[in-house]
């Protein structure tokens, strides 16, 4: 099966690839299969550790991560050609990208079942079991599970299962999580202070929030519970205003330029930010326009 997965003639390559590349499907259940790409290490793949990478979302593709972040092939010229990413993580080890859960990218579930954090962790575990059936020699390698963003949920939940399955994963060593959302409560409790201390929230609004909602202690202020449960309507409104009027540009990188496709940028960004923060659309969002 693995020989059938070997990628031998990838369009857009005009150079010799110095490592083996496999792509195909890992069986998860009778109805589910996860799409994977596996890039062996540049050097000494027979000794190098095995690293799994999972992008977040939920619903985002690890192929997106491979092609834009830490994978060996990046794309140029509107999808025509590839170039070798000199900082790909397969210079540190053998890297496996799995598109998960079912429905992401090329992965599928013919039963179209509901997905949860638990089912995703179980499915990822099953996919890894199938990976080691296809590539049994990698069972002997040091194994790390890594990921980003909602990977802050995926990675520890999968790792918890893998750590309890020492028969299948005898050399599981650890995890790495980048910009992970391990706690939504902490996410919301830290977001407004983070925005304020980057100069993105009006001073007067911040002082009012501190005074009327946080007993003047914004460092430990429970914004999450104030907003969802305990806060007065005035506090909820002010906190929402803080989120909605924060001028962040690119939410994913404060200092990055953001180019959109013609729609007014401020409307797109505010809408996106409010959605990302799980907030209703603010009636006051044009106040500072």
């Amino acid at each position, binding site marked *: 099966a693995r020989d059938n997965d070997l*990628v031998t003639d990838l369009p857009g390559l005009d150079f010799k690839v110095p490592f083996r590349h496999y*792509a*195909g499907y890992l069986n998860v259940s009778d109805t589910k*299969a996860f*799409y994977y790409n596996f890039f062996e290490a540049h050097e000494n793949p027979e000794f190098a*550790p095995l690293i799994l990478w999972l992008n977040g*979302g*939920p*619903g985002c*593709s690890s192929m*997106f991560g491979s*092609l*834009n*972040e*830490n994978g060996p092939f990046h*794309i140029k*010229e*509107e*999808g025509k050609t590839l170039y070798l990413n000199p*900082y*790909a*993580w397969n210079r*540190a080890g053998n890297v496996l990208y799995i598109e998960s859960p079912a429905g*992401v990218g*090329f992965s599928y579930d013919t039963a179209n079942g*509901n*997905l*949860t*954090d638990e089912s995703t962790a179980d499915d990822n575990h099953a996919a890894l079991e199938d990976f080691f059936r296809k590539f049994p020699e990698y069972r002997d390698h040091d194994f*790390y599970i890594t990921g980003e*963003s909602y990977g802050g*949920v995926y990675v*520890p939940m999968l*790792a*918890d299962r893998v*750590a309890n399955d020492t028969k299948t994963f005898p050399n*599981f060593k*650890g*995890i790495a*999580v980048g*910009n992970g*959302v*391990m*706690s*939504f409560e*902490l*996410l919301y*409790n830290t977001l407004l202070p983070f*925005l304020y201390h980057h100069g993105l929230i009006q001073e007067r609004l911040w002082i009012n929030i501190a005074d009327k909602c946080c007993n003047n202690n914004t460092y430990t202020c429970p914004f999450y519970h104030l907003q969802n449960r305990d806060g007065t309507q005035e506090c909820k409104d002010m906190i929402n205003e803080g989120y909605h009027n*924060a001028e*962040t540009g*690119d*939410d*994913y*990188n*404060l*200092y990055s330029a*953001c180019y*959109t496709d013609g729609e007014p940028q401020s409307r797109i960004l505010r809408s996106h*930010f409010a959605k990302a923060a799980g907030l209703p659309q603010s009636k006051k969002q044009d106040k500072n326009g």
Partner: protein
Amino acid sequence: DRPICAQSNNDRQYLNRPDVRRALHVHPDAPTWKECGDVNYHMTRHEVPMFPEFHRLIEKGKRILVYNGDVDTVCNVLLTSKFVEQLGLAAIPDPKNRTFWFHDEEIPNKAGFITRYEKNVDFLTVRGSGHMVPKDKPKEALQMIYNFVYGRDY
């Protein structure tokens, strides 16, 4: 859809080419590839943080690296810093009083802050990086993951 401001649809064009899909052994019935999509997902752990999983991994002696680009607002650096703090582990005092990690090809060469905790838990910030650290700071990201998996100083 895709993360707003991603500024590229190269990957979508490439991965939906019929010749590329054949070469990558994509199932013939697989739908059009896109970066992110609605997958009927229910966040069952929205109210329950990941502390129990981290504690069990730590108890089993697994190594843990948590890192965060410091100019990301989607998952900000205070969130992850506080999460690691609240694991309740003792920070390891650095005999050299060093609170930075370094990447020597950049000027200044401070790649971010580092806090090392007992029981093999490390927290690193990545200076000037947004949400996608390997994209924004590829050199630092490779140095970081290389040294993590080989158990070296960052």
